[in-house]
């Protein structure tokens, strides 16, 4: 099965936080910005950047874990946590360059994006279609399409998909 990636187009993000809401409801049973695995980072003015686990191929979190509790799920090619092995040392959280591994003090556990078993809720509920779950081969597609449109039609906007 072709690997799918969760990608974000920041220029479409309106900062509504629907993704954070449904992620927290899905994984924690409550609506709470602190319990979401995806975070909207405002960069000032009107720019918002959704940030979450990138499921790196050479994941730093996997490399530093002293208990080998972080592994690559081959089926969906996603980085996962084995909670039977995890001792909550949070070294993975320190190693992650994206800050995508979070620690829940209430239960003393780390948590991160798990791609919702292949059907990410954040993608389903993203109204501006900023978040997409696409085949890796299609990753640059919208940019290619946008460039093609600019060269031919001459518009700066991408057409609706």
């Amino acid at each position, binding site marked *: 099965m072709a690997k799918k990636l969760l990608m974000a187009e920041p*220029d*479409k993000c*309106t*900062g*509504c*936080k*629907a993704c954070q*809401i*449904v992620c927290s*409801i*899905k994984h924690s*049973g*409550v*609506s*709470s*910005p*602190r*319990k979401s695995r995806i975070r909207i*980072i*405002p*960069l*000032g*003015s*009107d720019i918002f950047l959704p940030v979450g686990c990138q499921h790196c191929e050479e994941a730093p979190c996997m490399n530093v874990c002293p208990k080998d509790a972080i592994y690559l799920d081959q089926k969906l090619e996603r980085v996962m946590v084995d909670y039977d092995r995890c001792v909550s040392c949070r070294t993975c959280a320190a190693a992650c360059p994206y800050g995508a591994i979070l620690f829940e003090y209430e239960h003393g556990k780390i948590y991160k994006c798990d791609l919702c078993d292949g059907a990410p*809720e954040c993608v*389903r*509920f*993203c*109204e*501006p279609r900023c978040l997409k779950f696409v085949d890796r081969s299609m990753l640059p597609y919208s940019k290619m399409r946008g460039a093609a449109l600019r060269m031919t039609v001459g518009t*700066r*906007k991408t057409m609706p998909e």
Partner: protein
Amino acid sequence: MTLKRKFARIDLTEKKITIHEVPRQWRYLFLGGSGMSAYLLYKYMLPESDPFSRDNTIIISSGLLGGSPAAGISHAGFAFKSPLTNTMAYSTYYGPLAAEMRWAGFDYIMIQGGSDKPVNLHIQDKRIKILDAAKLWGMNTTDAMKQMRNERGTFSGTLFCTGPAGENRVRFANMTDERGVTFGGAGLGAVFGSKRIKSVLCEGTGTIEIKDPEAVLAWHRASGISWTRKNKSPEHGKPDARDAGYRRWFRESGIDFKTGMAMLTWSSSQGGRIEALPTGMAEFELYPSGGQTEKTNVEMIASRKGFGEILAGGPLRASERLGGDSLKYFGSVQRLLEIYCGENPVSAAVDSPAPKEPKPIPPFPEKREPAPGPDKSQGDGLDENSWVMPLMDPVKRVCNGLGVAHSDIFFNGKAGGLDVLKELIHVNSGLVFNPADLMDLAFRSDAVERLLDIRETPLSRGSSLSDFCFHPMDGSILSMSVLQDIDLKKYRFEVQNHYRLNHWDKKNLLKLKTFKDLRIHDLWPHRKRT
């Protein structure tokens, strides 16, 4: 979703904040939205308040769907007495504020009184602080919000503020947030400015409990619910290329773009009148010619200098200074109606573009009993024989109560009816309604808004809408008939007649029996100043 949210009352005069539980009764009477806000204004705002006085009240409501999976289309609402129209205005603000308020633990925030010194309001996790804003007063919106963020060192939460226009009480001053989204063009910025509030920051990190989370998500997936809010609109999302220049100047000054632009365009036609006005106006460029000139014009309105002082009052008040027939050069009657009726829910009875005849208004029933026949609670249809016929389509009204726009919400590609909305309400909040309950709720929301407008516009002869087309002081008819082929005399008569014949006028509505029938008899003592 939990309904255990709070109602905060901020008294800026006394610097006192009290926090109460939101009574469950309110949810069943109104859900939320403009109906609930009208109820609160009727109850807590002194009758016939001057919009710029400390008696004016601002209600911020989160909407029942704030923090729910419908976050993409949910909005917060701002209700206040508008300095432009002298009636209730209800402004919707799309973005994360509704969710942030509910995460912070609040469903309603009421701001009363006024501060002697400029302040910022900070709402965070069950607490509200009133902070000094002296350093920010006088700054444009962009600089003010940038400085606030630099001082805080964080970009969390939702921040919005007013600009120089609001501080100087330009009657169509609005509020702006960090995304560049503006809202409250009926003078919300001016009301905030009159209370000396520069900005509001709302940060919520709390939790909204959900009884059955999987059921909520599953329902949203299965319902085929989708929404179409255009995120590229400068008003509701990310600014587009047009934002460079024009809109940025308006936004930073705190002036509502649509009204301000209409005023500038109109002013260019007033050449002869300008020459007759006192000196000091000469520096105002009458015809926008691009670049620095337009920016100067915008700044003049915001600072109320020169000709800007006249325009700052809005079209009707400006026309008093320029001569009554000056309004015939205004862009269109339609535009005037949009300016003065755009944020008045009662005006939903009259669509834009301006109709040649008033839209039929259903009668306010003496006895409210269900009419026999098929269920008329689906979609947009209004049955003239139905016992309850609100001014606004009941589906739109229920959506308003939920804090979403009806035009944005679809179920499997079709607009939803009350039967679908009752499920949406139940799955997200646990509240149980049947379609008849929702019709009743919609009717009550219309009625309380109408009662509020009747109370607040003493010059009205039963129609707040018709007064917008006429001199606000002595009721004389303005000569606008050359613009459209609307006979304003006839229009005004027919609108007033409509309200009267269908019992929506003051004489028929202002009875204790009516208040009891609507289950809002606690508002009866507040019907007039004592």
